[in-house]
C-alpha cells in the first residue's frame, strides 16, 4: 500500500500531463469523428446510390481492420508514400477520428431513421423544404436520441487513444510504459495508470448523465 501511494506521488506530475494529452486526443478526435459521422450518415440515407457505396466501403474498411493498423497507415504509411508527414498528435487525432467516424455514422443514421416519419411530413406540410426540416426538426431530435450511444463511443475512444502511444504519443499509457521501465514497478504503475482512465470515464459518464437529464426534462420520450 505504501509503495502504491509512493508511486502515485512520484508519477503524479507525469501522469497528469499525460492525462491531459489523452483528453485532448479524445476530444479532438471525437469532435472530428462526429463531423465525419454526420457526413457519412447523410451519405447512407441519401437517395444517391454512389454515396451509399462510398459510405459502405468506408464503414466496412474501418470496421474490418484493427485500429492500430489504421494508425500506422496514417502515420507511417502516408509519410512513406510522400503524401503527408504528420506529427504524432495530428496523426493520432486523425486516425482516431476516421475510426470513430465510421461507428458514429451508424449511430447517427440509426437515430435519424428512428424519428417518426410523420415529423418530416408535418414539417414539409408547413412549407419547409427537406433540408430545412432536416436541420430544424429531424436532426435535433435525432441528436438527442443518439446521446447514449455517442457517450459509449466516447468512452471507447478514450481508451482507444492509448494506441497512439505506438507512434510516439505522450499519452497515459505511453507514460506508464516509460515509467515502469524506469522504476520496475509494473504492477503499481499500471494499476495507477488504469485508475486514471477509470476516473476520466467516471467523470465523463457523470457529465453525460447530467446532459441526458437536462434534455429529458425538456423533451420527455416520444411524446408528440
Amino acid at each position, binding site marked *: 500500500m505504501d509503495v502504491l501511494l509512493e508511486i502515485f506521488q512520484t508519477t503524479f506530475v507525469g501522469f497528469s500531463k499525460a492525462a491531459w494529452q489523452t483528453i485532448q486526443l479524445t476530444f479532438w478526435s471525437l469532435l472530428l469523428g462526429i463531423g465525419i459521422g454526420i457526413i457519412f450518415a447523410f451519405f447512407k440515407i441519401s437517395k444517391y446510390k454512389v454515396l451509399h457505396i462510398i459510405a459502405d466501403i468506408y464503414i466496412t474498411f474501418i470496421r474490418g481492420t484493427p485500429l492500430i493498423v489504421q494508425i500506422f497507415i496514417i502515420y507511417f504509411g502516408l509519410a512513406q508514400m510522400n503524401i503527408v508527414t504528420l506529427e504524432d498528435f495530428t496523426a493520432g487525432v486523425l486516425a482516431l477520428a476516421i475510426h470513430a467516424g465510421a461507428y458514429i455514422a451508424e449511430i447517427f443514421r440509426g437515430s435519424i431513421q428512428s424519428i417518426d416519419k410523420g415529423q418530416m411530413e*408535418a414539417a414539409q*406540410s408547413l412549407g419547409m423544404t427537406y433540408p430545412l426540416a432536416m436541420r430544424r426538426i429531424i436532426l435535433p*431530435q435525432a441528436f438527442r436520441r443518439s446521446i447514449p450511444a455517442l457517450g459509449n463511443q466516447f468512452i471507447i475512444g478514450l481508451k482507444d487513444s492509448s494506441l497512439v502511444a505506438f507512434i510516439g504519443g505522450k499519452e497515459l499509457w505511453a507514460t506508464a510504459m516509460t515509467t515502469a521501465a524506469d522504476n520496475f514497478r509494473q504492477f503499481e504503475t499500471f494499476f495507477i495508470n488504469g485508475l486514471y482512465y477509470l476516473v476520466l470515464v467516471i467523470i465523463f459518464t457523470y457529465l453525460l448523465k447530467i446532459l441526458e437529464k437536462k434534455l429529458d426534462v425538456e423533451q420527455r420520450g416520444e411524446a408528440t
Partner: protein
Amino acid sequence: MIRVKNLHKSFGSNEVLKGIDLEVHESDVVVLIGASGSGKSTFLRCLNFLEIEDEGEIYIEDQLIQPKSTPLNKVREKVGMVFQHFHLFPHKTVLENIIEAPVKVKKIPKKQAETEALALLKKVGLAEKANVYPYSLSGGQKQRAAIARSLAMHPKVMLFDEPTSALDPELVGEVLTVMKTLAQEGMTMIVVTHEMSFAREVADWVAFMDQGKIIEIGPPQQIFEDPQEARTKEFLSRVR
C-alpha cells in the same frame, strides 16, 4: 380553389386511387367518408403532395401543379394539413411549434410571429399552454395545437385526416368545435372523418369514397337521407 381531374395513384401493383374528380370552391367544407382502405388518406396526401400522383391533374387556386417543375414547398404553404397523430415537434414548446414555419419559411419577424401565435392559441383555447412542451398536453390539446400550427401559415385550404380518431371519446368534441369555428369563418376545408354528426352539421358537401373512387357526392342531407348508390347506403347503414 381546388380542382382535381382523373387522379390515379398506385403503390406497386395496388391501384389505390382510380380516377378521382373533385371541385372544391372557396369556403366549401367537404367531408370525405368511406370504408377503411378506400383511399381517403392517400387522396388527401396527394393534395398536399406527400404522395405524388401517377396520373391526373391537381389545380390549386387555378394553378396546375406539376410536381416535377412546381416547387412543392411553396404549394404546401397554401395547403395546411392536420394529421391523425398530430405530429407536433416534441423538442419545441407549443409556441415554438407554431412560429417555426412562419419564421423560418415565411421569414416573418419573430416578435410578430409570436403575437400571431398567441392569438391563434387563444382561438383554439390553449392560451395558457404556450410555453409547455407537447408531451404534457392531452390528445385533444395536442390536436388543437397542431391546428393552430397549421393556421399560422395562413393556408388557403386545410386538409384534416381523421383528426379525432386517435382521441379519447371525451376529447373529440373540443377538436370538432375548433373545426366548426374555422368552417364558420369561411375556411376552405377537406375533412376525412368518421364523425357523421360533424358531417351533417358542418359539411357543405359529403363525398363517399369507395375503392379508389368518389362514387357519390352531394349535400349532407341528400347523402344521409337519400343516398343514390347502393354502396353508399350499405356503408351508411353500417356506421349508423
